[in-house]
């Protein structure tokens, strides 16, 4: 059921919504992450996303599978974009459909938090003042069980070690 996509093409919501909801679904939760014009108070001009594509696809497929397994949802579709993005363009889109809203919200949240923690993708921020930087990220560690806990309130997980690049 779940679909994962890593692409350099613009993310089209209509496309990601195809086939959803099904007749058994009562709730649909869509998350879209977009490039915004500021970071920590500094005006941003755009963002370049770089990924380790084959690994990113495998990790995203795993995340989508986990979301479907751990939450009672009908289907999860997640897509992450790579390349040069302008302000307002979508970098990530997640569509969750299922019988009940609570599980749909939780699954949606699970996918975006895991994307931020685990997806081998990096972003290079271009500031309006001409500066640029690699956005500080999360240090990956050898595969550990995913951080889901039965009481998971659908909230962000405690951050793992966050650091600038080495």
């Amino acid at each position, binding site marked *: 059921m779940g679909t994962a996509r890593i692409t350099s093409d613009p993310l089209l919501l209509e496309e990601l919504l195809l086939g959803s909801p099904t007749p058994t679904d009562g709730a649909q939760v869509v998350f879209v*992450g977009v490039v915004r014009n500021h970071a920590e108070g500094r005006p941003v001009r755009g963002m370049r*996303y*770089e*990924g*380790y594509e*084959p*690994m*990113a696809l*495998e*990790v995203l497929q795993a995340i989508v599978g986990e979301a479907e397994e751990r939450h009672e949802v009908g289907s999860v579709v997640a897509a*992450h974009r790579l390349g040069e993005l302008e302000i307002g363009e979508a*970098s*990530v889109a997640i569509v969750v459909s299922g019988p009940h809203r609570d599980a749909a919200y939780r699954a949606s949240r699970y996918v*975006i938090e895991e*994307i*931020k*923690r*685990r*997806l*081998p*993708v*990096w*972003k*290079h921020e271009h500031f309006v003042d001409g500066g640029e930087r*690699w*956005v*500080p*990220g*999360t*240090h*990956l*560690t*050898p*595969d550990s069980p995913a951080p889901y806990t039965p009481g998971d309130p659908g909230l962000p997980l405690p951050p793992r070690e*966050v*650091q*600038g*690049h*080495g």
Partner: protein
Amino acid sequence: MDLDVLFFASYRELVGTPSVRITLPVDATVSDLVEEVRARGEGFSRLPDRPAVAVNRSVVPHAHRLESGDEVAFLPPVAGG
């Protein structure tokens, strides 16, 4: 054995290339590989001494034993989304 090692994002910029071929003794571990890579000097020596390393698209412990044909990548802290 010979291995192609991939570098991404800030690491790629640091070492100035997206990949290098490294020759290692049979039974070498990720730890040995990191040492060998950092010994190349210049940008390579500025890589962290404990970078995240993926073998065949999974992050592994540094004690992991490498095999000929493995797909190896040095991964800076990730920031997707």
